[in-house]
């Protein structure tokens, strides 16, 4: 039965509920697999085998006794390491938080545990979620399961790699400027960034508060709908959490997209988009057309300014969010006792943060400083308004908007890491959804030279149902049969 780890959550839950598979066995298989291949992939920063097995036994007992079980019923979930887990160290892939064990859970973690999901570990990421390749991790890079020489995307690279290499059945990532969708695309997973305010941010270690959301990274759209249904809930601990009734997104797993109007965003196929990516995405669009959807191209002029606007806003917010890491209350503290407080702060932050984090903090501090605020932060926030208006206008004509998730195929480890600007350019297609606060999904649509390509679909605020319906129809009618090999 050890093959079961390769199944989707939906299938595993079915087997568990039918008592064909014991949770304990399935979780053990997962850890066996992790032990076999994690060394090559390095998807995890921390594993929680003991507590996972214990939880598995508890759920098995519940099932034996015929008690009600939650919707996640023993499924093994990997959690990105910027989501706080009570009693489990949460590092943000930073030396600064190398030994940080939060005394509280993120709200999403509570929700997952309430539904009997089992946390199997904390996944690797770019430090403080700042990056698009998972190379900026204090613990070293994660490797793309499809090609170990290449990056898995980022910043939630560990989560995507874990799910796709079946070292986890489901995963949570966070998306500030594409950080769920990018690794989903690079690893051939489904990744969804929910509407801003749909999922609680309480316990998500902030990078850029006004942009980010936690979301699912899964093997298919069905699992995505299931996990989203569990985590999308109003949270009084998050002032930006929307108070609307809880929805069951699995209701939208409907194979019908007739007459759905797709807008193809021209700007997302701009310079820097690789031909193979462009072709892969257009093939997918044609497939959607075959299923009865109509498409038309549309231009959202202000998207040309989304990348610089995104970086200015994200860096500015980050510079303030990361000020708290001074080593006094938690986190890295230099051992030397003779320095005064300023020197200690300077050194804690010099040695506790990696280069990319420092770069962004310094630029963000600059963008907020007197004399530059209007020119950078304010201007970027105004452009954000223009971008939102572009989307609003477009959604009057179209149900959803489409483009590639990433302009490029997964690149080689080390290829871009020394050129920050080139790395930033990879986010060009991901950031508009964050700026507008709208939901966006990446669905695997094809391969080129053995490397995955992701299709990005964006919907109006709180229309995740559309993304799930379209994604589900696509996957049902055009399954990608390519199997991951080489790690068995």
């Amino acid at each position: 039965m050890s093959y079961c780890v390769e199944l989707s959550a939906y299938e595993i839950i079915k087997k568990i509920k039918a008592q064909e598979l014991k949770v304990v066995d399935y979780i053990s298989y997962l850890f066996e697999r992790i032990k076999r291949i994690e060394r090559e992939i390095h998807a995890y920063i921390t594993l929680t085998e003991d507590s996972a097995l214990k939880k598995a036994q508890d759920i098995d007992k519940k099932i034996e006794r015929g008690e009600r079980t939650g919707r996640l019923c023993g499924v093994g979930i990997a959690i990105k390491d910027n989501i706080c887990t009570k009693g489990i160290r949460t590092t943000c892939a930073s030396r600064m938080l190398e030994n940080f064990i939060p005394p509280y859970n993120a709200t999403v973690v509570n929700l997952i545990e309430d539904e009997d999901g089992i946390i199997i570990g904390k996944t690797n990421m770019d430090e403080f979620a700042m990056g698009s390749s998972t190379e900026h991790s204090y613990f070293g890079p994660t490797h793309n399961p499809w090609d170990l020489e290449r990056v898995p995307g980022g910043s939630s690279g560990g989560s995507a790699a874990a799910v796709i290499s079946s070292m986890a059945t489901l995963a949570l990532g966070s998306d500030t400027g594409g950080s769920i969708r990018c690794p989903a695309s690079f690893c051939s997973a489904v990744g969804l960034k929910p509407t801003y305010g749909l999922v609680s941010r309480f316990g998500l270690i902030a990078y850029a508060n006004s942009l980010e959301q936690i979301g699912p990274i899964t093997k298919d759209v069905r699992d995505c709908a299931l996990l989203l249904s569990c985590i999308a809930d109003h949270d009084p601990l998050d002032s930006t959490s929307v108070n609307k009734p809880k929805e069951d997104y699995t209701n939208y797993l409907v194979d019908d997209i007739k007459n759905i109007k797709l807008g193809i965003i021209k700007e997302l196929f701009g310079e820097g988009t690789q031909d193979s990516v462009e072709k892969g995405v257009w093939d997918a669009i044609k497939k959607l057309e075959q299923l009865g959807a109509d498409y038309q191209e549309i231009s959202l002029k202000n998207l040309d300014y989304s990348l610089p606007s995104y970086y200015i806003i994200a860096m500015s917010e980050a510079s303030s969010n990361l000020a708290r890491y001074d080593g006094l209350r938690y986190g890295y503290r230099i051992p030397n006792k003779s320095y005064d407080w300023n020197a200690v702060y300077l050194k804690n932050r010099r040695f506790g943060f990696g280069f990319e984090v420092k770069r962004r903090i310094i630029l963000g501090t600059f963008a907020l400083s007197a004399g530059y605020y209007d020119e950078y932060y304010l201007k970027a926030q105004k452009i954000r308004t223009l971008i939102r208006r572009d989307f609003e206008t477009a959604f009057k004509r179209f149900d959803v908007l489409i483009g590639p998730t990433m302009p490029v195929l997964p690149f080689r480890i080390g290829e871009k890491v020394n050129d920050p600007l080139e790395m930033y350019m990879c986010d060009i297609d991901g950031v508009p959804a964050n700026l507008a606060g709208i939901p966006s999904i990446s669905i695997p649509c094809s391969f080129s030279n053995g490397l995955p390509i992701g299709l990005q679909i964006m919907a109006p605020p709180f229309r995740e149902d559309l993304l799930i319906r379209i994604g589900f129809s696509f996957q049902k009618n055009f399954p990608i049969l390519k199997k991951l090999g080489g790690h068995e």
Partner: protein
Amino acid sequence: MSKIKSLEIKIGLEVHCQLTNLKTKLFCSCSSDYRGKEPNTLICPICMGMPGTLPVLNEKALEDAIMVALALNSKISERMLFFRKNYFYPDMPKNFQISQYDKAGGVPFALGGYIQINGKKVRIRRIQLEEDPGKLSYDGTIESSNHTLVDYNRAGIALIEIVTEPDMETPKEARLFLEKLRSILEHLNVSDGSLEGSMRCDANISLKGGKRVEVKNISSFKEVERALNFEITRQKNLVLRGMVIGQETRHWDETRRITVSLRMKEEEQDYRYFPEPDLVPIIIPRERIKEIEQKMPELPDERRKRFIEQYNLSPQSAEILTRSKAMADFFEESVKIYGNPKEISNWMIGELSSYLNEKSIEIDELTLTSKQLVDLIKLIDEGVISRKMAKSVLQDMLLTGKMAGDIVKEKGLEKILDKEYIGSIVEKILKENPQAVKDAIFDKKAMNYLMGQLMKKTEGKIDPKMASEVLRKRLSELAKFITP
């Protein structure tokens, strides 16, 4: 003083008042009752700025702030944001303070307004809500201590910041302003100014021709007058020596009672204010303000007017009695027990106030109750003790906490009211002073000597009215037998 006047002093204040009547902090559910608690026992992941935590605004704090703005005649902004003020300091868990801001698209909680002191308007520039930092302490002094001890119990306590225009001209006016402000906040039942550190302020002072000097770290209202007096004298001396006063920030050293120049870590332009993304905008509809207006309690100015009308007090007395809520409450409780407002007011403004001033304490720190004061006043009104004696009885009451009646009895201070006994003493005095008796018969003024003798003999306990009556009667009887 005249020299200082001629230099045209301008004083502005920036007052930070804790909303002490809230049960919790501004952005988390930790208890705000931090005084006397062990360090770092009223903290949570939110007020400790731990990773991933988020603020949620205290509903009651918003309501309190609306009341304060209304009471200070300030215009409440209809839509407002919170801003982050970014700077590093060990008392700040997040290394930014959630506050409000009047630039970069921000509006403060409320704008404008004034407080009336002695018929003069001190204008308010703005009012805003923000969080208090934690508290630092040292082993020894800040200079000698080789580490700093931080207690975050205070971190996140709701503060209301009130910034005035530079409308005050003397340190005394500044004190009066603060007293009035405190009285207003106490009448609103939002802040208890008697709690240590609940009201702190920074002051800016400029002399004509000089630059603005800011004095920070004035931890209580009592210190304000002292700090300002020192600073004005310092600046005045500089001016007299022909030196120029430059713009700077100084620090009030409470123990040495001097202001010292403070090199700022960060300047205003370094704070990098920007809207707090974790808090949503606050909109206060007019109707909500009206609703709160309806249930506003009586404020010091209204109370003062009512005291004049209802108790027939002089405007000055009413002003003094309403300067603090505790004082006004004490007065009204006393009047409720015993309907002699005039006498109660006199005693409170006279004897009681000088005692409080001398001891530098407040009326609610006394063990003396309204009932006790009233009992004392009753004894006077009933003629049991003289007014003069009552003063010494009051001192005893304040010292020992005993009831007036008991002190009078213990010390045998009752006035001699027995007519027969008075008669016998009068006879005695007359016999002992034959010449004085003669004088008194022919010259009414000479009677005073005999009265004096009477008082002396009875240690002042004799009722003077009764005694002079008896004496006069006896003298007129004796007049029949004596010829000039």
